[in-house]
């Protein structure tokens, strides 16, 4: 077992790759009663075209299959539902689907072993019939309607549409009523057999555990499976330019909401963490709580709270997102672009840079408060091929000069987009 450590925050992670290809990561936490386990497969809404390793057959699936599959995994041949079984034990169980992975999880204080039995049983036993697939279409249809009413989801989807012409990140995670109507048990089994192979999965556990014992417990519950070759995923070619600069839609909101983005084209694997840290420092310097620009917007009543930031990246896409609520999003855009221009010309202020770096350190450490946050973070990072402690360990290597380089190479005006949702005009 490989052990990685972060001395600053006094945490360790035990990592083991089992012979069948499954990666298990255990982060022991003393002084906590809560236990959290999450089992993820590297299969998300963007994986809509691939070659099955066993048959070499190329498969092109309807939008929303990964999410549909997630819903259906809980159903058992004997008519029970694993979610209910876990809840009956007082275990808080759930599952979710993102752009690049699907995860099954539970959190508990007691009955961890029974929970582990159930989790490892249902994830390894798919059961799809014509009947149960049809029934699910009604439930997921309701979920899709709920998303359609959600202005922030629409805002994000429109931002993706500005950023990319043809990138699978534009696919709605749940699909559409039309796309899910084409889903059959056969499609689900094909996806299950390809992506739910241990070599395409990662399990993360966090809580008060002895790692050696826990690994044995996990091994005991794994079903034997033939080895499988690499899954070839087919994506459209990368686009150098943005699709369009802006998109505005009207929905039932009282004040416009906006999402401003910068498309990142280079996506160098080696420096991902360092770059990510630099971007977070820069975003805080540009429009964070203590920035001059935020103070100005706040005073003018253009921003009520500091905007949210995010840097989303995978092998297929990478972009910076800044989102918030403002009665005049165009003015926010102007202000941000002007500030970036000035920062590029004058360079970053040393004192400001240092202060924000301290803040970012605090932000990373706070993530280690809850077993759930830790486990989800390790899984999401593992799917991207990132080692989570690197954020704490590498933060000192991000210098002002490096951040200035990143500012010049990524925060480019020609790669900037703006998505707005404004109130319905009567």
């Amino acid at each position, binding site marked *: 077992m490989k052990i990685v450590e972060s001395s*600053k*925050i*006094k945490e360790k992670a035990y990592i083991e790759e089992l012979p069948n290809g499954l990666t298990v990561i255990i982060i022991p*936490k003393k*002084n*906590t*009663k*809560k236990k959290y386990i999450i089992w993820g497969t590297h299969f998300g809404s963007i994986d809509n075209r691939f070659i099955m390793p066993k048959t070499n057959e190329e498969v092109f699936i309807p939008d929303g299959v990964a999410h549909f599959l997630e819903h259906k995994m809980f159903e058992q041949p004997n008519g029970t*539902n694993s*979610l*209910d079984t876990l*809840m*009956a*034990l*007082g*275990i*808080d169980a759930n599952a979710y689907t993102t752009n690049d992975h699907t995860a099954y999880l539970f959190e*508990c*204080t*007691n009955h961890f072993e029974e929970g582990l039995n159930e989790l490892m049983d249902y994830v390894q036993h798919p059961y799809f019939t014509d009947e149960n697939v049809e*029934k699910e279409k*009604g*439930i997921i249809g*309701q*979920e899709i*309607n*709920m998303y*359609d*009413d959600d*202005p922030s989801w629409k805002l994000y989807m429109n931002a993706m549409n500005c950023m990319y012409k043809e990138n699978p990140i534009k696919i709605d995670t749940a699909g559409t009523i039309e796309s899910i109507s084409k889903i059959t048990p056969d499609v689900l089994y094909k996806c299950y057999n390809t992506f739910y192979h241990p070599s395409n999965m990662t399990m993360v556990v966090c809580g008060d555990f002895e790692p050696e014992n826990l690994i044995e417990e996990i091994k005991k519950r794994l079903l034997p499976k033939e080895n499988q070759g690499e899954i070839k995923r087919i994506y459209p070619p990368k686009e150098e330019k943005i699709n369009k600069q802006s998109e505005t839609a009207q*929905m*039932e*909101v*009282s*004040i416009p909401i906006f999402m401003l983005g910068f498309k990142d084209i280079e996506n160098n694997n080696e420096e991902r963490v360092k770059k990510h840290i630099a971007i977070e420092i820069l975003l805080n310097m540009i429009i*964070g*709580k*203590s920035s*001059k620009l935020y*103070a100005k917007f*706040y*005073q003018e*009543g253009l921003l*009520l709270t500091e905007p949210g930031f995010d840097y989303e990246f995978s092998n297929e896409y990478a972009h910076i997102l800044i989102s918030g*609520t403002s*009665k005049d999003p165009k003015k926010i855009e102007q202000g941000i672009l002007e500030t970036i221009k000035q920062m590029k010309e004058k360079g970053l202020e040393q004192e400001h840079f240092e*202060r*924000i770096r*301290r*803040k*970012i*350190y*605090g*932000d990373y*450490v*706070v993530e*280690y*408060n*809850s077993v759930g946050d830790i486990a989800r973070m390790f899984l999401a990072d593992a799917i991207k091929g990132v080692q989570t402690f690197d954020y704490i360990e590498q933060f000192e290597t991000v210098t002002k000069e490096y951040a200035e380089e990143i500012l010049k190479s990524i925060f480019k005006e020609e790669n900037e987009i703006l998505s707005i949702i404004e109130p*319905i005009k009567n």
Partner: protein
Amino acid sequence: MNYQKEQIKNALTLHQINTNGYKTNLYAVFLATPLKKENVTLDALLTAVLRRGTNNLPTQEQISQKLEMMYGASFDCGVEKTGDNHIMKFYLETLGEEFLPQPEKLVEESINILLDIILNPLVENGAFKPEYVEGEKKNLKQIIEAKIDNKNKYSYDRCIEEMFKNKPYGLYKYGYIEDLEKITPEELYKYYQNLIQTCKIDIFCSGIINNSNIKEIVSKNENIQKLQERKPEYIVNNETTEAKEKQEPKVVEESMQVTQGKLVLGLDINSTEENSRFIASVYNAILGGGANSKLFQNVREKQSLAYTANSGYIRAKNSIFIRCGIEIQNYQKALNTIKDQLEDMKNGNFTEEDIQNSKELILSTIEGINEEQDTEITYYYGQELADRFVSIEEYANKIKEVTKEQIVNLAKTVNINTIYFLKD
């Protein structure tokens, strides 16, 4: 027990929670005052103005810079309704001293900054700074107008408003635009001066704090020393104080541009027996607490009528709210199914297994209380306001003792008060 409380002054209580499971220390100060139509807007505006600046750190930029230097300490504030009280909440979270890249003293600095923001606000010419008040009035106006944005939350708030019409709990926590517009910086400051000498003040500290002398830091703080002794005006709410009258359900329908309908039912529990809250918790969990609940199983799973179907128990008002997201044309069908579940509860149509499952669900929530700092603080503060102290262990035991007979008896006192439906 890792929790202790002591009086610093009359109506000023210090609560300490010693715990070593976190990387952070959390400090919270709560001001409690009765919910009144004429004050709710003032309370909400005041909370927002206080965070703008102190006599020591006169701008928000300076406050933020100070917090960033403290490794990104985070400050947050807001207003909440708890029973018939309006609570102004102020939080500061910092890293625990042992997780800093180099040794520094953060505990005392944290407490002093938090108290500075609340008790030493920037005052110019006997009033709050007009620019801050005007700015926050505009912001608050936007927040009040944004009430409609989140349809789930909106329909829930609307149901509460209808159910407690002309009563304190029916008030909107952010207040009302017609009241907001009239407030001046002088009036707000006058309101503040009176409030701070009459409200109930509770200070919470949670984290690895046993080596810091918190009591001494707080007692010696000059802003605390300036506070007068007071007889606090606040309202005690618990199951014994909430008597109800039976009445015909009120039906309210509203239209907006939505594709999914939101159905919210407000239920009265007409039982004022001491400790009936434990029975009500189990009742609520069986009815709509989780994936095994009657609502989830019957409204969502068996009939595919809804994507969400659950219920929540508001102890301070002895009420339960059922919330469903449904297809608009399924309104009657969903409502009938919900009513059937309420009848089932009255008739004892649930099994020992249902009771057991529900208890497990509640017990795991109870065990989770001291796994999150703000949850633990909220738990103890709830006890403080209800004037009922039950330790976390006792709470779990009381839940285990609840019997089917008690649940059925309680179920018989449950009536639908309000049916609210948001449609297209």
